[in-house]
Structure formats: structure tokens, C-alpha cells
């Protein structure tokens, strides 16, 4: 086979892996939208906040140290110990559950029965608040996240493909881990929603709020639960992206990568988020590989949105989204 074909295959394989990382972010959006009809603009900031909290716990950093030092003239920074990664993840999860509870208590509860646009605006406010709150709590410096995930080229894949095709493929080991984690996450979420009591309640709320309320399902509990699950998904996405690029403000911008994935896969479908991520990831890499050199390169960002727009024209609800028909 000519070398160009191998290059294209390598680009496609890496695109699929990158697509999984996009899908991880998109999953959080889907969960909340499915259960409450809210497009959570703050999902990217959730990932950032979760990753910052995880690093903070791991490093034994004192929360709000800068603020405390500024007010009391102290010089506090660290507790003087490091927390084991697993414990730090559990503590971060607890913080995300608390955050979900507070969001429901202080934001959503007061906006029941409001227009979706009002709820959307509330999540924009929440995003700005959390950005600043995270900085005050953990500092704005760029942090290294090390949760023991492997990184760098997989020698095994390189050698195997070289012996088969005479061309060694580059695959990042972190991307392989992300793909496995995403698959497990999707399976777990599917099992949860299909076979557990709370999963059924979640689906009932997603189908019809009023009907769910009438059979005794607590809307507020379901909202807390779904925001907590979205917080967990954000933590997983934050761990993957944070390992890749360090924990920093820009991590919140990965939400922009999830938008075309959602438009393509549909806002209400978990498998849609995965398939959408894969299509966007592979599409943008192949487009950059084949057309990029002809148009000056750096096509990934706009290509993803262009592809999503094309899908919108022909299938507004996305590939797997529910078709909504409203009576006039």
C-alpha cells in the first residue's frame, strides 16, 4: 500500500481516539439535558473545577489559601501531606455531589417551570461563578495532574503495525485508556438507567416531568442525582484532558469541542454522544490531513462546526436525538 494510505489510516485512528475524548465531555451535557431539558453551559467548567479539586486534594493544598493569607496575613499553602489518588478521587466526587446539591438548592429550585432559555442563562452565570470560585479556591496556576495514567506513544502498537504493514502507527496510550474508560462509562450509565430503580425514575422524569411527579418521583432528588452523575462524568473528562494538557483555565473550553458532537449525535442520546464524538474526531483529522494543506491548515475547529451544521440541515434532531413534534 502506498505510504499516503497508511498516513490516512493513522490520522483516522487517532481521530477516533480524540473523538472519544470529545464524547466524554459531551456525555455530561446529554445526561443533564435528557433529565431536565437544561443545556448546561457550565459542563466544561465542571470538568475544570473537578480536575482542580482533584489536584488540590492530591497535593494537600489548603483551599482558599490565597484568600486566607490576604485577609489574615498568614503564609498557608499546604497541609504538609499528599493524599493517595484513589482517596483524592473519592473526595473530589464528594465535592461534586455537594456541588450538585447546592446547584439544585440555590439555582434550579428557584427556576422550576421557567423557560429553557432562563435555565440556560442560569448555567452561564453558574459557569462564570465557578471559574472565579475555582481560581480563588485552588489558585490560577497551571497544575500537573498525575493519576497514574500512561502517556506517550504505544510501542506495542508501533511494533505490531510495523511488522504487519512496514509502517508503525502512532497511538497515544492515554487515548487508549480514555477509549476504554468511555466504553465502561457508557455501559455503566446504560445499565444504571435500564435496570435500577433510580435509573427508571430518571427516565420517567426525562419522558414527562408532570407524570413522574404524579406517581411520587421526587423531581428535586432526580435533579441532584443527575447533576451529581454529570459531575462524575466531568471528573473523568477533567482527568483525561487534565493529564493531557495540565489543569488550567483552558480546560473549560473543551466544552466548545463537545457542541458539534452534540449537534451531530443528538442532545438526548448517550450512544449519540459517543458516535457523534467518533465522527467529529475522525472527520476533522482526515479533513486536516487531506484538505488542510490546500487551505493553509488549522481546519479542525471550523470543520467540526461545519460538519455539525450540515447534519442540522438534514437531521435537526441529530443522528440519535428524539424527533420533537409540537402541536400548534
Amino acid at each position, binding site marked *: 500500500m502506498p505510504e499516503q494510505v497508511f498516513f490516512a489510516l493513522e490520522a483516522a485512528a487517532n481521530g477516533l481516539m480524540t473523538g472519544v475524548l470529545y464524547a466524554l465531555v459531551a456525555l455530561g451535557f446529554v445526561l443533564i439535558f435528557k433529565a431536565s431539558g437544561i443545556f448546561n453551559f457550565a459542563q466544561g467548567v465542571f470538568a475544570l473545577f473537578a480536575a482542580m479539586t482533584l489536584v488540590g486534594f492530591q497535593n494537600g493544598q489548603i483551599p482558599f489559601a490565597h484568600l486566607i493569607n490576604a485577609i489574615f496575613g498568614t503564609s498557608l499553602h499546604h497541609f504538609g501531606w499528599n493524599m493517595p489518588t484513589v482517596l483524592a478521587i473519592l473526595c473530589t466526587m464528594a465535592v461534586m455531589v455537594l456541588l450538585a446539591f447546592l446547584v439544585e438548592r440555590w439555582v434550579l429550585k428557584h427556576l422550576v417551570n421557567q423557560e429553557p432559555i432562563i435555565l440556560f442563562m442560569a448555567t452561564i452565570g453558574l459557569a462564570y461563578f465557578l471559574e472565579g470560585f475555582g481560581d480563588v479556591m485552588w489558585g490560577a496556576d497551571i497544575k500537573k495532574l498525575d493519576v497514574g495514567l500512561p502517556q506517550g506513544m504505544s510501542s506495542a502498537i508501533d511494533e505490531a503495525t510495523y511488522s504487519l504493514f512496514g509502517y508503525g502507527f502512532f497511538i497515544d496510550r492515554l487515548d487508549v485508556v480514555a477509549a476504554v474508560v468511555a466504553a465502561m462509562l457508557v455501559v455503566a450509565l446504560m445499565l444504571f438507567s435500564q435496570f435500577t430503580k433510580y435509573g427508571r425514575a430518571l427516565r420517567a422524569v426525562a419522558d414527562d416531568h408532570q407524570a413522574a411527579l404524579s406517581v411520587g418521583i421526587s423531581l428535586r432528588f432526580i435533579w441532584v442525582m443527575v447533576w451529581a452523575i454529570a459531575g462524575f462524568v466531568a471528573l473523568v473528562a477533567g482527568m483525561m484532558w487534565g493529564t*493531557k494538557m495540565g489543569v488550567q483555565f483552558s480546560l473549560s473550553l473543551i466544552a466548545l469541542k463537545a457542541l458539534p458532537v452534540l449537534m451531530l449525535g443528538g442532545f438526548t442520546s448517550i450512544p449519540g454522544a459517543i458516535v457523534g464524538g467518533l465522527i467529529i474526531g475522525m472527520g476533522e483529522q482526515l479533513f486536516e490531513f487531506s484538505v488542510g494543506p490546500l487551505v493553509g491548515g488549522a481546519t479542525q475547529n471550523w470543520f467540526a462546526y461545519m460538519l455539525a451544521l450540515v447534519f442540522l440541515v438534514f437531521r435537526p434532531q441529530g443522528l440519535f436525538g428524539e424527533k420533537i413534534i409540537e402541536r400548534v
Partner: protein
Amino acid sequence: MKLTRLAAVAVAATVAAGPALADLVFPSLSYRTGPYAAGGIPFADGYKDYFTLLNERDGGIGGVKIQVPECETAYNTEKGVECYESTKGGAALVYQPLSTGITYQIIPKASQDKIPVHTMGYGRTSSVNGKVFEWVFNYPANYWDGASIAIKHILDLNGGNIAGKKIALVYHNSAYGKEPIRTLEELAKKHGYEFKAIPVDHPGQEQKAQWLEIRRDRPDYVLMWGWGVMNQVAVQEAANIRFPMENFIGIWWSGSENDVRPAGEGAHGYKALNIHKTGMDFPIYDDLKKYVYDKGLAAGAGDQIGTVLYSRGMYAAVLAAEAARKAQELAGTPNINATQMRDGMEALEITAARLVELGLPEFGPAFKVTCENHGGSGEGLVQQWDAKEGKWVILTGFIASDREVIDPLIAEDSEAYAKENNIAPRCN
């Protein structure tokens, strides 16, 4: 009557909030929030701390106290312009916009308002030409100097011959990132290397395609013009594809601790240019400790001291203070205005002996600013990241850029600007 009282209170409040009339005012357009805060905080801290030192130790400059009003831009051009507009009325002496975008917007305004702008190692490169850009200074070096210094370093590594070598530029797909392309193309003609430019879209979190391209093309050297998250991802991706890090060289905005720490051991050996030295092995830190840090007067959280970008902020303040000193000398009065500050900047001379007096021996290059040359000596050094020690190691002395290639480019670009804006060349 009520209105008169209200007006009086408003005037009193404005006067109280603003700097005292006799103070020397150096506004700081900082960005402590937003996506680039990690880079903005150390610079703003270094800038502020040096002026605090002068106030505490020397009673200001020439006996006149210094004020550093800070305005948050979040690295946003619109906010930067708002900051300029809101602070210029307070007897501002010089602006450091800290962003190429803000610089381009401020240049015409500052020229109109007759306030000098100092863009140290960024901004509009051709503002080196003082004949055209009366109010803009970019000493001690600019992007085109940076491109030339990187190539000179590569020439040194290859015994002066890089004909046939492949050199790629990974750049932020913006006006800033595109700055070195023309210079690198001209240098390619001169030295016979093969040049390829590879853009990365803002913000640069995903660069898989670019680094797969590099893996396929196997360039001998990769240069980088990045900022923010693009730097960290590029260093990580280079490590992922096992690109030899000692052949990967970033511009000075891609060479802070922030850019290499997230990649851990993988970043070991990565090189970057710098326009000054870094670290705390300079006598000035004894004074800073005594008069600023120990008194609890350090800016921000006080946790950025000695880092690359803190050093850069401090260096910017040193050069501003030295220009103010020169301006006071020329004007014959310690109470200078922005026009006199500009005169001081245009007559600024930094000698090796003066750097020793300042407690910064060999911290930066010696240079002289003239009416024609607002860009200084155009020198820079190469530093390398030692991941094991967690610090930058200086590899070279200050390297001068290739004037033979750069000067005609500066003349061409600045003359075009003069023509577009009907500016009559000065310095005759």
C-alpha cells in the same frame, strides 16, 4: 444645592481614588483572570514588586513616589482598550499592553494622546523604526530577532551549515504566531534550509494532526510560536511522538515554567529563547526580600518570585524606571510627563555597569535606544529545561540577530505603515 454637594463629593472621591498629582504613574494592564492568567499573574507581580522596592528603598525615582494602578484586561483586546482609556487621564507615563492585539489597538490612540507604549518582546515588530513609530518602543528584542536568534543557534549547533536541513514552525494561528514566518522564509533563502509552517488554531488544546504531520515529515528542528495552553499541549505532544526535545525551540512566550511542568519528565531538554536571565541568583533579590517580601508588600500571592515571567515583569519595570530616570535628567525636573518620558525612553542606555549597580549583573543585554532604533540590540539567549532539577539552564550568552536580513524587512513594513497613515519620517 444638593447637586453642588454631590458634584463636590464626586470630585473629592475622584481625586482621592486617583494618583497624587506629583506621583510617577506606571499603569499595569494586567490579566490575573481568564485563560491566560497563569502567564499574566507572574508578570504583573514582578512589575509591581520592582516599583514597590523603589518606593520603599529609594523613596521612588528621583525622590518622587511611584504609583502602579492596575487594570484587569483578562487578555481581552476590548477590555485592554477600556483599561487604556480609563487610566490614561491619571498622568500615565508609559503603557505596557502585554498583548499584541491590545498593542495594535493602542498604537494609534497613544500616538494621538502622546503617551509612549513599550511592547517588550511582542507587539508590532516594525515599530523598531523610530522614524515612523515615534511613540512606540519594543526594546530589547522583537519577534523577528527571535526567529533569527533561533536560526543562529541552530547554525551554531551545525557548524554554520544548515543547507538541506528541515525546519518546521508550529505557530498559533493568529497575527502573533504568523510574525516570524516572513523572517524564517528569508533566512531559508540565505541558509538553504527547507522551511514549513504548521498552524495551530486557538486555543490549541488539540494538536494531534500537527504532530502526526511532524512525525511523518521528520523535520530536524521544530520552532514554536505559541501562548497559553498551546505551549503545554505542544510540549506534551512532542514528547509523545518522541521528538528529540533538544531540537524543539520555543520563542520567549513559550518558555516559562508553566509551559513545561505539565509534561513532567517528557519536557526534559526542551529549549526556549529568552530576552533576559531568570532565577533568584541576583543581588537585587536581597533588597526585594528586605524591602518588599519580608514587609508583606509582595504583589499577588507572592508565590511567583524568580520565575521566568516574574523576571520578565521585573525587567520591564527596571527598563521603565531607568527611562524615567533618564527623562528626569533630560527634563531637569523629577516631575516628568508622558512626553518627557518618551524622550527618556529614546535616550535610554543600559550598560553592563548599570546592570551591576541595579543588582542585576548580566541579567539582560547592554543596549542603547536612539531616535532611529526603538528596538535595542535585538539580542536573546537560549535556555533549556532541566526536568529533574525543575529549572531552566542558560545555554548561551546573548546572541545578536541577523541585521542583514531583518533591517530591510523592518524598513519595508514600517514604510508601508507610514504611507498608509501619512506619517512623515522623523529623526532627520
